[in-house]
């Protein structure tokens, strides 16, 4: 054992024993077996065991942990339910994994002001369940809403199927309490509709655990719409389905949800959920309308006309609530359904301007042939957020690497057509190199400067979300895009 390793081990032992002073014995985990459940988030291709897992249950404990780690210069990765899809909660070997799983309390539901105050470990769906007696609900509904927690939703700025009309997490929260890297408790935003100073609420939302530890969230609640209805339309061509999406919006309608699935996704979902989808269609659209009774009735008529005019081969309105639920069940089970037809799948998350849909789909089908990997497409069509699922078999040598290369090309193409590498899953570990494609050195430097304003030593979730310029230079050296070297202004190492 070298002297360095010995010193490191000694320092780690010292930190662990200090953590044991702060927390009960069962809240500090160090055995490999106990650490295993924390080795990855929802993106299980990245795995790593942390040095130690801590499970505090009070804000004061979180403050003490942060204070201790700050003084010891030890990095900290915060974790909610671990349902994230970009490796954002991937632990560090020499770091502390801070789980917020014990913060499960709904602190207050305030129907008079239509807001709820929650600990970060409250599950997304539990908020709406608790607010239902007041005829209120929490709008963002990521597909993992049964399991994912509000703290993680804020860290990732989670979306869902209702974003076009109701916005993302950033549009539906009012106040955060965060513990800073050095253990201070800070209130960001307020119970009011705005707060003095810079809008740090927007900055914190989607910051992937890089700026602070979220220990309390106040969300906005909305009145449950009087009625929701869904229309299903089938198309013999995906481009026509894409056109229909634009036509619905051009008709002045903002659907509560507007989802598209392609043939492979339709067939997988139908075999799995028996939702009554037309198996032979090239694409289907699910268009949900909500609001007052009268408004929904009028909009259904308009949407049906628009869909037919756009060349739909079939247009069906769910005949009752049970059929509406069934239509959605098919869509919401698309991921596990695809999981049944392929040993593994890799879910991508780019956003594009909707008008580019046909171009992007045809590029993907070309790549699919090139890489010899099938792709099923599930698409939040209303807001341009694509979820291509690349089908692969991790047991076949080289197939994961081929899948990742395919995925990277899709994301880079999203940037080329004016979109982004991530709509709602976050950058995390997964898309860190693609950040070099989307941003230039000055912007990346700005992100680092913002990070430093909160966390000067770089101890909060280091290595995620924003690549170093050095990393981009190396990535650029490997990656010559359209004949242009990325970041030509940088030195090559």
């Amino acid at each position: 054992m070298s002297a360095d390793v010995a010193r490191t081990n000694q320092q780690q032992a010292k930190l662990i024993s200090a953590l044991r002073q702060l927390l009960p014995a069962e809240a500090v985990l160090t055995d490999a077996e106990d650490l295993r459940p924390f080795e990855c988030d929802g993106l299980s291709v990245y795995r790593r065991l942390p040095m130690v897992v801590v499970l505090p249950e009070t804000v004061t404990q979180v403050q003490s942990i942060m204070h201790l780690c700050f003084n010891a210069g030890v990095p900290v990765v915060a974790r909610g339910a671990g349902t994230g899809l970009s490796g954002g909660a991937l632990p560090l070997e020499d770091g502390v994994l801070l789980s917020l799983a014990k913060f499960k309390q709904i602190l207050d539901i305030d129907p008079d002001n239509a807001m709820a105050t929650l600990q970060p470990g409250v599950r997304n769906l539990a908020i709406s369940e608790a607010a239902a007696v007041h005829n209120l609900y929490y709008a963002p509904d990521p597909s993992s809403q049964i399991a994912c927690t509000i703290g993680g939703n804020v860290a990732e700025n989670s979306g869902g199927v209702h974003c076009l009309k109701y916005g993302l997490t950033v549009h539906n929260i009012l106040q955060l309490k965060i513990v800073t890297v050095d253990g201070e408790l800070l209130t960001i935003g307020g119970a009011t509709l705005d707060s003095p100073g810079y809008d740090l609420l927007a900055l914190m939302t989607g910051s992937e655990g890089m700026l602070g530890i979220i220990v309390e969230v106040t969300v906005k609640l909305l009145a449950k719409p009087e009625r929701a209805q869904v229309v299903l339309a089938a198309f013999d061509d995906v481009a026509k389905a894409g056109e229909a999406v634009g036509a619905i919006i051009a008709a002045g309608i903002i659907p509560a949800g507007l989802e598209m699935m392609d043939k492979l996704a339709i067939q997988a979902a139908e075999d799995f959920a028996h939702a009554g989808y037309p198996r032979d269609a090239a694409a289907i659209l699910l268009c949900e309308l909500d609001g007052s009774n009268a408004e929904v009735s009028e909009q259904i008529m308009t949407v049906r006309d628009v869909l037919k005019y756009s060349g739909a081969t079939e247009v069906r309105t769910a005949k009752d609530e049970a059929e509406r639920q069934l239509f959605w069940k098919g869509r919401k089970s698309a991921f596990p359904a695809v999981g049944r037809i392929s040993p593994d799948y890799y879910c991508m998350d780019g956003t594009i301007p909707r008008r580019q849909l046909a171009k992007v789909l045809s590029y993907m089908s070309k790549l699919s042939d090139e890489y010899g990997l099938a792709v099923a497409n599930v698409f939040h069509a209303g807001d341009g957020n694509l979820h291509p699922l690349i089908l692969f078999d991790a047991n076949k040598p080289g197939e994961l690497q081929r899948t990742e290369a395919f995925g990277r090309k899709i994301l880079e193409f999203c940037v080329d057509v004016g979109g982004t590498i991530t709509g709602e899953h976050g950058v995390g570990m997964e898309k860190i190199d693609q950040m070099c494609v989307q941003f230039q050195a000055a912007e990346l430097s700005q992100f680092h400067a913002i990070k430093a304003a909160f966390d000067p030593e770089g101890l909060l979730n280091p290595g995620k979300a924003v690549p170093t310029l050095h990393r981009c230079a190396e990535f650029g050296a490997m990656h010559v895009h359209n004949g242009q070297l990325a970041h030509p202004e940088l030195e090559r190492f």
Partner: protein
Amino acid sequence: MSNTSISEQLQTQVQQASETGRQLNIIGGGSKSFLGRQCHGEALDVSKHCGIIEYDPRELVITARAGTPLQEIEQTLAASGQMLPFEPPHFGATATLGGTIAAGLSGPRRPYAGSARDFVLGCKLLNGKGEVTQFGGQVMKNVAGYDVSRLMTGAYGTLGVILELSLKVLPRPAATLTLLHECSETDAILFMSGLLSKALPVDATCYYKGQCYVRLSGSEKSIIEAQKKLAGEKLSQQSHFWQRLREHELSFFDSSKSLWRISVKPATPSLPIDGDWLLDWGGAQRWLQSNTDVSTIRNIVQQYDGHASLFRNGDRNSNVFQPLPLPMQRLQQRIKASFDPGSLFNRGRMYAEI
């Protein structure tokens, strides 16, 4: 409608200012120069940097240069049956898009549709080093990198010069109707906050001179349906009530007393401060004309978890915005320095220290 880019001139001026350490005072149409604290510096005129760059109604996104007149934006959107959903106040015919976002003001629809910052999707920004940077984009969902473009909203130009903005837009409602009924302030607060948990197409509520106003918007039929469930008589469309409220043209605003903007939770009871009150945003934004001293106002408002800013008529060298707790103030100073290390832009416009 002019369409010109002067970003290179602006960049040069910022670079020169950066080299010599000269302070800059960013100016658009000048319509909101009365807001915030008084600040000094060489004028950096953005008004010539104007024109709509891209607008495709089907994408629900408009991209325009910061100096584009707000009127031009709104007329262009209206021609395609769309609008800026946050109903921004203009406070003058010269209002620009950049100033609207920098001031971060929203109109009566705000509690029901969202604020100015909610509709910002992306921006091009000239930072304090004279670099042109770009954040966010033209798509609705985008979580790559920190949300810098929304941070610019309400930052009063202290973090950089906004060059371009992309905003989400929405269709205009097919119809609107305003109902009003007489009631006490206490009843109005209960009534307006009660509407928050009712599925009605309400998109503005206010209490003024003993009357509670409720605006409904949506399809013709849905409004007729909603009208049956609510008390009140119809207000004539000709009164332009909401526009006059938004632009501070109601007689309430004719006063030489200080005008305070008070932000509280909507169900907050009537605040015990002497003066004239107008409650907008369903009770969440309250306007107060009063000669009561600053510290009394802020002490009371803080007891109700709110904050107070001086909007018109008062000492513009004092704390116009509610002072921040020290750790927050320091964090905001560090954020300012991360964008504008030489503290060139609009120094002191929000707070003396940023």
